[in-house]
Every structure is written in C-alpha cells, then in structure tokens.
C-alpha cells in the first residue's frame, strides 16, 4: 500500500522468475497465504456458501434454499435503501478523504517548524482515540435535552435540535463525526506523499514567476495525483465501514433508515434478526459489487499507464 502512495510514477519491475525461483518462493509465501486463507478467503467462501442455506446462527446450518435468500433480500425495501445510503456516505465522505486532508497536509508542509508539528499531532488525535469512546462522547454532546451542542446554539438564540432523531440532520452528523478521523488519517498519508516531493521543483516554479497558488495548483497537487486517486477509491469502498461504529452507537441506522448502510444492514440482519442466510447474501453482493468496481479501476489505470 505504501508504494501506491508515493507520488513518483515509478513502475514495478516485472521479475522474470524462472520456475525454480517460483518453487523456492513458496516456503516464504506459505505463512501469509495460510493467514489469508483462514481469515479472508475462507470466510468469504463460507459466506458465499451460507448465502444459499437457511440458518439462524443456532444449531447446524439448515437446508439448501437456492437463491431464496437473495430474492427475499431484494424484496425487502430496507436493503435497497441501505445500498443507496452507502453510496450517499461515499459521496459525502469523499471530500473529507481527499481534498480537505490534501490541503491540510499541503499547508502544514509549506510551513515546516514546531507549530506545524503541534498542529499535525492535534489533527491526528482523532485517529488514536478509541472509536466507541468518541461515538459515546458525541452521544452526550448531541443529547437533545442536556447536550452541549444544544446548549451552545442556545447561546446565540437558536432553538434546540434533535440532532440524531431528525432525518434532516442525522446523516450529516454521522458524516461529520466520522470525517474527523478519515481526514486526520488521510492527511498523514498525504504528508507522507509530500515528504517525497522534490522541494526544488517549487523553487524552479518560483523562478518561472509562478504565484504561490499556481505552484500549489500546477506543481504540488498534480504530484499528489496517485495518492488522491487511491484515497478516493478507498473512500468509496470503505466509507460505509468507516461510519459503522458511529451509526451503531449513535443512530442504529435510524431515523427511518436514513443513516443505514449495507454494512450496518448486514450486521442487523445477521446478529439482530438472526437471518444469517440473508446477511450472507447481502455480504456476497457487496463483495461482488466492490470487487468488480476495484478490479475495473485497476485495469483502467493499468491500460492508461500503458498509454
């Protein structure tokens, strides 16, 4: 992942390994492959199998029901809504995972010094605090009766709001609460990319009469393109997972399902309704959708790199 984050367009060198070299590689690969098999490919496969069975998490899995779980899932309006909300989360979190951390990182990078180190640490703080602790704190802050949020807006004469209970504000609150962490983490990745950028290119631009903004716009930002594309993709794929803790602690998908998303829906189906078959079917669909999307993105980038 780190190699993908560096802005320099270095291409991986294709190693033309002889068959003997390949044979020698297996002992080294085995531990990692074993872990992947046990924790990633195995469960994924198991989920696929479960999606064709009837099971309520207790006892042994039941009989084969074919595509029945999928059919029931598509008949259920909640799943469609959750899928739509997932895309909405992805769109809403995209600026917090790309543009905003990029500018924060650039600003910190342009003014190196003690203050920049202090700000960087402060901005990174949300990443290090336990997610549930953060979410619970927000529940206190946003409490409609005694919360700090309503106390604060009351100071300027605004009426109290039901932050998490009102469909108009609930999704926005979840996005903003989640964004602190996403922004902080991606800012760090952008900082890493910036640290490999040749500062001389900025001086060269200055000598060519580029203004500060032009230097940022035409010299710095394009050199961060690879990082931006990667973080954008990660954001689209993972936004629904990033908000999971906050949804779980603050809204449980409500009100009226506006803060729901496929991941939380899978959790609800599997561990609250014990509809393990349906939950597995939903998981399989999500995996297939994002798997195809990611592969498509990789091939698109590869063919573009080839020219």
């Amino acid at each position, binding site marked *: 992942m780190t190699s993908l984050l560096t802005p320099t*367009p270095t291409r991986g060198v294709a190693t033309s390994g002889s068959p003997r070299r390949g044979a020698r590689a297996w002992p080294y690969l085995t531990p990692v492959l074993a872990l992947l098999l046990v924790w990633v490919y195995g469960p994924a496969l198991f989920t696929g199998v479960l999606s064709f069975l009837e099971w309520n998490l207790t006892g042994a899995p039941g009989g084969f029901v074919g595509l029945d779980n999928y059919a029931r899932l598509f008949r259920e309006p909640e799943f469609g809504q959750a899928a739509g909300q997932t895309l909405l989360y992805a769109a809403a979190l995209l600026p917090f995972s790309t543009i905003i951390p990029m500018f924060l990182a650039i600003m910190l990078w342009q003014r190196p010094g003690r203050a920049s180190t202090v700000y960087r640490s402060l901005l990174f703080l949300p990443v290090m605090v336990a997610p549930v602790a953060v979410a619970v704190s927000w529940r206190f802050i946003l409490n409609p009766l005694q919360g700090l949020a309503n106390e604060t807006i009351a100071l300027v004469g605004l009426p109290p709001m039901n932050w998490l209970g009102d469909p108009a504000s609930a999704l926005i609150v979840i996005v903003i609460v989640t964004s602190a962490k996403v922004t902080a983490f991606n800012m760090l990745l952008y900082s890493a990319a910036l640290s490999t950028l040749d500062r001389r290119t900025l001086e*060269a631009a200055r*000598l060519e009469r580029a203004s500060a903004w032009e230097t940022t716009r035409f010299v710095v930002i394009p050199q961060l393109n690879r990082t931006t594309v990667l973080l954008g993709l990660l954001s689209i794929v993972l936004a629904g997972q990033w908000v999971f803790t906050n949804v779980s602690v603050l809204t449980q998908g409500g009100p009226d399902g506006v803060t729901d998303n496929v991941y939380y829906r899978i959790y609800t189906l599997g561990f609250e309704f014990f509809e393990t078959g349906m939950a597995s079917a939903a998981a399989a669909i999500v995996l297939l959708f994002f798997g195809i999307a990611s592969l498509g993105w990789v091939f698109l980038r590869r063919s573009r790199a080839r020219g």
Partner: protein
Amino acid sequence: MTTSTIAGDIQLVGLTKKYGASTALNALDLHIPAGSLTVIVGPSGCGKSTLLRVLSGLETATDGELLIGGLPVAGQDAGDRDVAMVFQDYALYPHMTVAANLSFGLRLQARHDRRGGPSKAEIAQRVAQVGGLLGLDKLLHRRPAELSGGQRQRVALGRAIIRRPGVLLLDEPLSALDSQLRASARGEILRLHREIGATLVLVTHDQHEALSMATHLVVMDAGAVAQSGTPEELFHAPATEFVATFVGSPAMNLQPEGDGRVGWRASDARISMADAAGATTPDGLVVEGTTETCEFTGDGQQVTVRTGERVGERGERVDDRSGDRSGDRTFIITQREGERWLRVGDPVRAVIPPSQLHHFDRNGLRRNA
C-alpha cells in the same frame, strides 16, 4: 536567440548573507561581465551555492548591493529578475512531459498577461526551437522518469533558456552525470553559451571543469572572493596560496621558503631521465616521486618513481591528491625519450625553472605579484 551584451552584467558590492550566527557570504565584491561564462569554484561550504541562490533571488542578501544589468534588484522577487537557473538535480516537474516542462514558464506568462503574453502558437514554436537546439525533438512527449541523466539535464537547460534570460545560473550542472556524459555536457554548455549570448554563471567544486570552461574564473573561500580573472591569470599568477593549491591538478606543491612558502606546479617540472638508468617514459605517464628537500638550482633534484598512472593527455588527471601535500609530489611527464617505460623505483631528475616558481609571504599572499 538574440545576442544581448548590455543586459546580463552583474555587479556585487559588499554582499553579505547570514544564516543566524553563521556567515555564508562575507562582504563579497565581484563583477561578472555581461556575456561571460563565469565559473565560480571553491571547496564545499565556501558559499558558492549561496551566492547563486542570492543571484537568482531565491535567497535575500542580508546586506550589500546587487545590480543585474546595471539595476539594483534587491526588492525584486526571484521570477521578476532577468535570471534563470538550472538546478543541480534538475528539479524537473515529474508529472509533466518534456514539452510541458519546457513551456511551463511561458504558459504562466500567458496566464498572467493574456494580451501581452506569448500566444499558444508562439509557445509551441519556442518549444520546438529549444527542443531542436538541445536535440530534444523526439523526447517532447516523454516524462522525466523516462529520460536518461543527460537528457534530463538538457531538458533543465532548455527550461531555463526558453524564457531568453539575460543571466543563466547553473548549480553544479555536471555533478550528477557520469564521466562520459560529463564531457559531452560540457561541450553542450559551451555551445549554448555561444549561441544564446547570455551571461552564464556556473558553480562547481571541480576545478578541472572550471579551468576548461570558464572565460572568467572566480575562486571563492570562506564566503569571499579569493581571486577572480581569466583562468590563465589564476593558473599562472595565483594571488594567494589558497588559489594556487585550488586551481590546477595536481595541486601546486608548496614548501617553506624564508618566512613564507614557495610553490611549483608538477607540470612545470622538467623531468630528465638521465639518471634513470636509461629509463624512458611513454606519453602521459604520471610519475609520483618523493623528495626530502627541493632545490631549484643547478641540475634540479633526484626523485624516485613511486606510483605511476598513464593518462590520455597532459593535464587530464583528475585526482588532485588533496590529502597531505607536504611530502609527496606529483609530476606529469609528457616528454618521451626512447622506448623503455618508467617503473616503480626508477630515479628521475626534476628541474623547475625559476620563472615558474610562485613565492608567497607568511600570510599566503603572492610576493612581487
């Protein structure tokens, strides 16, 4: 390209640059003539790169005056001076093609001044022209990562000259190239200088490069100019011991004489094989001899061959034996006598004509200069 002899004249008076407590440039006075190829040379830390950065406007002088083309530029920002710079590591924009790298400055000009700036057609024409001048025609659509070191350097040169600056600054332009490319790049810079007519100011720590390229040579030491003039002046009449040992390779030999020191160049020594038991040397064998004392009268002195190294031409030896200069002396033998090559242990006789001796007083300043 237009040839301008009025623009490009640089005058520095009492220029000082301090970084906190340390002084990089110490009341430096220097005149860089318009149209010259001025090479600034000196050991690392002598302030030569700082001088270049102050000239470019990337750094602001702490004190003193700087005139470019007869006008003070103290308040001007880097881009507003009639100055372009080639960075040591080229600093090409990695995400842009060669053509985009070359045209970036012009495109900015067009952005800033939509009426007076260059048109798209003019930019394309100038990219083609500079590309042709530097042999980059076929590389215009490549990115820097797809270029060799020599090609990158030509792109860096092209990016600097496309705006037709009166002054072109080059920071160690050859240091990142291997020795083969270095010779051709040196030729490239000399040709460019002839063709664009700008003042070239080149910084290097390689005094060989300095001697071979400069029309005007500046030796810097401890943030000040030790001596400036033509390479011949600095080579044949060094003003100080520092200049004497810094310019020329191998370094000038120095040894005590009265309260000061006397110096002589190995290349000025006339080597006689008379005592070498019939030994002769092929063209261009470097012979290193050791001596206890030197006398520069009569028949010269006896030295013994310690190590030898054949080189292509007189003076082509790069190693300057910068270590201990007190004991070993290096001779470059160019005359050929007979067939036999010199061997380690052969005695030879070295004679230095009195006219080739350089006398320095106890402060290291040239006597009778």
